[in-house]
């Protein structure tokens, strides 16, 4: 009778308790290096950052579907280039939160400073407070949901994706916009060049419902929003404008 000895499989250790980084003592580079070194999210699914105190680039460049809870306010470029991770900032965020995000989700419990979600290519950015100027500037596929207001020049040159604003929008919303869809529930101070009000068709209601659901927002209805988008008059050079140059 043959006795088979099974090859001993390597012990898989999963750290379910969050791995905590205290930025009062640990250098920021150590945190980001550790986050970048995750090769299998299942090994260390949960991370926590305490005492960020306005640090820059907290959890930037994460490329695994891990969860990062940031306890406090952050500075520039938090969660920049995020790919797959779910990052929650329990505070406010400085300029450029979620800049060039690829996928995943970033939630800011407080306010966000200028150019939140700039150039983002995918994923969902939720700002539970207000976002400042240039929110979603040059967005390229990201979905952004702002519970409060957005500042001037939001969705400037936006190319694709959806910007949802439950509050009001500032001056020059959607200036020089390409194909992104803008949904605003409150007032719009002014529309930028080539940005116009558009009809809400059933597919837009459905998309908006899905975005609100994903953002965890249950107290407003998609029908309360107005859609804005591109009039597409800037796509080609108009020869009548030749004198302007």
């Amino acid at each position, binding site marked *: 009778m043959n006795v088979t000895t099974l090859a001993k499989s390597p012990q898989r250790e999963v750290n379910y308790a969050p791995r905590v980084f205290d930025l009062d003592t640990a250098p920021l580079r150590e945190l980001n290096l550790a986050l970048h070194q995750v090769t299998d999210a299942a090994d260390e699914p949960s991370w926590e950052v305490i005492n960020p*105190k*306005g*640090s820059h680039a907290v959890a930037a460049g994460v490329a695994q579907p891990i969860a990062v809870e940031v306890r406090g*306010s952050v*500075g*520039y470029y938090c969660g920049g280039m995020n790919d797959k991770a779910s990052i929650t900032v329990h505070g*406010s965020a*400085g*300029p450029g939160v979620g800049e060039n995000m690829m996928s995943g989700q970033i939630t800011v419990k407080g*306010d966000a*400073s*200028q150019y939140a979600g700039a150039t983002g290519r995918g994923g969902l950015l939720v700002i539970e407070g207000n976002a*400042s*100027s240039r929110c979603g500037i040059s967005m390229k596929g990201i979905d952004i949901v702002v519970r409060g207001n957005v*500042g*001037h020049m939001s969705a400037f040159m936006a190319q694709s994706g959806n910007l949802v604003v439950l509050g009001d929008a500032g001056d020059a919303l959607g200036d020089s916009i390409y194909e992104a869809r803008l949904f605003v529930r409150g007032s719009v101070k002014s529309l930028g060049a080539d940005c116009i009000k558009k009809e809400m068709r059933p597919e837009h209601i459905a998309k908006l419902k899905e975005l609100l659901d994903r953002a965890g927002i249950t107290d407003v209805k998609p029908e309360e929003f107005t859609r804005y988008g591109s009039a597409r008059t800037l796509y080609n050079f108009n020869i009548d404008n030749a004198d302007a140059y």
Partner: protein
Amino acid sequence: MCGIVGLFLKDKTLEPQLGAMLSEMLVMLTDRGPDSAGIAVYGASTKGKAKVTIQSPAPGTDFAGLETELGKKIDAKVKLLAKSTHAVIDVPADKVEAAREAIAELRPSVRIMGAGEAIEIYKEVGLPVDVVKRFDVSKMTGTHGIGHTRMATESAVTTLGAHPFSTGPDECLVHNGSLSNHNNLRRELIREGMKFETENDTEVAAAYLSSKIAHGQNLGQALESSVNDLDGFFTFVVGTKNGFGVVRDAIACKPAVLAETDRYVAFGSEYRALAKLPGIEDAKVWEPEPSTVYFWEH
């Protein structure tokens, strides 16, 4: 880039810590501008007395004997307290102009940093940590103060090109940004009789506000006017004897964060600068709106 901080105290018990709080805030923003740093502190004022802050590239020779010579020249009791390259001279309030002229004559290489009943200004080339140490800023008491760390764009890295700029009694201004119509404005202000020490754009902004105030506007109104008349990028923080103001241009690309509690109003180019202030967790923290004047007064 540049970094700005400001602190306006409401709670008198914090006044002995003003210099220490402001220093810590400014040092936190060192990487926004390593060229030069400066600070203006509004301290206690005595009725009938004024303070003139001077600076010299050769303080050893310039400050020696100046107290006696100046006192004799303007026929008044003066007191000089030297701090590194700067000195604060106490003079009777009605002798400030006479003192300015006398100093220029007695010590041609000395520059006047500012004058007023409450203001003292210290600025030098170097990192914030070295500048605040050089002038012992952390031991200073005061009601409000403003600090700046500079990354030069518009003019040379010199002591005089550092901020704050003071162009009127007890007035000072710090700036993050760059102005594009400063040459024209400077010419206009020179025609009005204003004098300029540098080619710096911020000095023009300070002189512009001083001119508006001299023509009867209050600081709030002067700041309102600046939004229309100044072209370029700016976040300004300004101080007067009793007041503290903040304004940003319409584009508002230069960062700004305000925080207010029962005990203070604080400004920082970034939240980092405010993160260690007492009670910041429960403070009202917000980003000042573009083209909007924020102003507090004691």
